């Protein structure tokens, strides 16, 4: 076996090994960003959409997808949850998406469900009720961006 072939085989193997590593990383990358990529196509630029004046539950605006659920008041203030297609449950129960330890919250208090790009809040029969801004939520109610959902002492908002 000529020396040249050996050298090529030797380095070729090392290069192939690294190509494999990067292919694996590529698969992981695609896996991680699979959901995010598709969402960023529909989302409007930051700062343009979310300026619904507080205190006035505006009509649901289409085309401005909410991307984050932000806790604005209460013990968890400052927490952000990145939204996907999946519903979000809120309550004291351990398996809720957002576990709040608020004295006025029920184990399964409320949930947020996406329908055709619009998020709806729904009370799950909580003791103290869920409020969208000032109004009590009785059935599934569309949640505009920037309007506070109040659960006990906790306030949540959708942000673009």
């Amino acid at each position: 076996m000529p020396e040249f072939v050996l050298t090529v085989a030797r380095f070729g193997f090392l290069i192939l090994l690294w190509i494999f590593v990067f292919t694996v990383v590529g698969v992981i990358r695609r896996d991680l960003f699979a959901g995010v990529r598709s969402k960023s196509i529909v989302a409007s630029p930051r700062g343009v959409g979310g300026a619904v004046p507080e205190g006035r539950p505006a009509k649901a605006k289409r085309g401005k997808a909410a991307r984050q659920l932000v806790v604005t008041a209460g013990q968890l203030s400052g927490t952000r949850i990145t939204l996907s297609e999946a519903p979000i449950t809120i309550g004291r129960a351990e398996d809720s998406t957002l576990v709040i330890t608020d004295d006025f919250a029920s184990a399964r208090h409320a949930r947020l469900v996406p329908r055709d790009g619009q998020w709806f809040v729904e009370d799950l029969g909580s003791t103290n009720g869920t409020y969208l801004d000032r109004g009590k939520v009785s059935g599934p109610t569309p949640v505009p961006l920037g309007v506070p959902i109040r659960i006990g002492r906790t306030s949540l908002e959708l942000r673009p």
Partner: protein
Amino acid sequence: MKTQRNAELGLLAFAMVLVAAYGATVEAGRIGEITPTFWVPAALLSVLFLGLHFVVRYTAPYADPVLIPAVALINGLGVGFLRRLDIGDALSEKEPIPGVFSGIGGRQLAWTLIALILAAILLLVVRDHKVVSRYAYTLGLTGIVLVMIPAVLPASISEVNGAKLWIRLGSFSIQPGEFAKIALVSFFAYYLVRKREVLSLASRRVLGIDFPRGRDLGPVVTVWLLSLLVLVFEKDLGTALLYFGLFIVTLYVATERASWLIIGLLLFFGGVYVAYLLGASVGGPFANFYDRAQVWLNPFDNENYERLGGSYQLVQGLLSLGTGGLFGSGPGGGSPRFVPEVQNDFIFAGMGEEIGLFGLSALLVLYLLIVERGLRSALAVRDSFGKLVAGGLSFTLGLQIFVILGGITGLIPLTGQTTPFLSSGGSSLMANWLLIAMLLRISNAARGPAASGGGTDRAGGPGKKAPAQLHGAMTEVIKP
């Protein structure tokens, strides 16, 4: 979320091409020609992994796509390297080139077959990882018994190279500790899911760190004593570190308290240091540990080098790695047989000589990615038990790699751990493939849609349906 099974198949094919290429390069470098049967091990492995792939396709369709190909590549390269040792031995003895199924390479192929069958059985039997928690106490007891067996057996049966970790029956030997780690992780996870509240809430604040109450320390101290006993009676620092680290990290994951890590590290280093001092002054059961520490501290010391059971092996391993340099001497181009036990503990040194730092770091990145995928599943899975099991198993795998690599490179005292998936030996291969099967099962639950909802949605008002599935949403555990 997509199942990504086809990506897995593609990666698997790529991995097997690499294994075949490695086999060919080895033969070209060692024998000087490529024999017509060079592709047989790679082809056999491909069939085996393809079998596992199809089992996963039908029983865990959403499982992580990266785990199997990455592990398959490492396993395949291990088989290739062991076959390379067989070829080298035969050449130096002036014997004909051994067949594919003979020697340690052939034996490793057989072990891979058995390990994959076990992994497939685990995937077929355990359809939901939560089922495992029902047998938690049984598993915990099994784990402790498995750890303790070699310690109580007479040295003639259980001792290999100064470490009592084995059960040897004739030519057949197993290392029960390898299996114990999976059982122990499951038990710890179950125990901590039940106790996490107490452990994380009841605490006293000292110097800005929350320390748990004294009585809650009970189980930690028990495990600490257990691992120290392992250290003393089985004379193996690596295994002790493995069990103790495993418990501390599971505890940390369960409670999110950094104080556990601090307590754990202090206890461990304290214990090791005391053992070292005792070894220096008292000797007895601690002497072996003291010797190993001496070998680690002064490997190039002439007295250590000449002594039986001294630093000869470590020094040869270091020289191997140094000879390899950046790019290595090429597969088949080194002389790994200078390193004692190059097929077991020192396989990384042997491979390092031939594929160099460049190749070794690729292998290390692969290990890193395997551990990362395991931790990712732990983050994404919905139930606490699954989180702790996946986190614990991935961490154990990572820690084991750290312990053996740290030993070979002289970072920590050398202890007899196997390199997962690479070293020759059935127990290690079987146990680690079982571990991967468990991770696959949990990642399937983490990435896939759920078969059933929360189950406890009685709180929903009249006329309300149970909330839709939450699967696919990343859990973000939020503490006040």
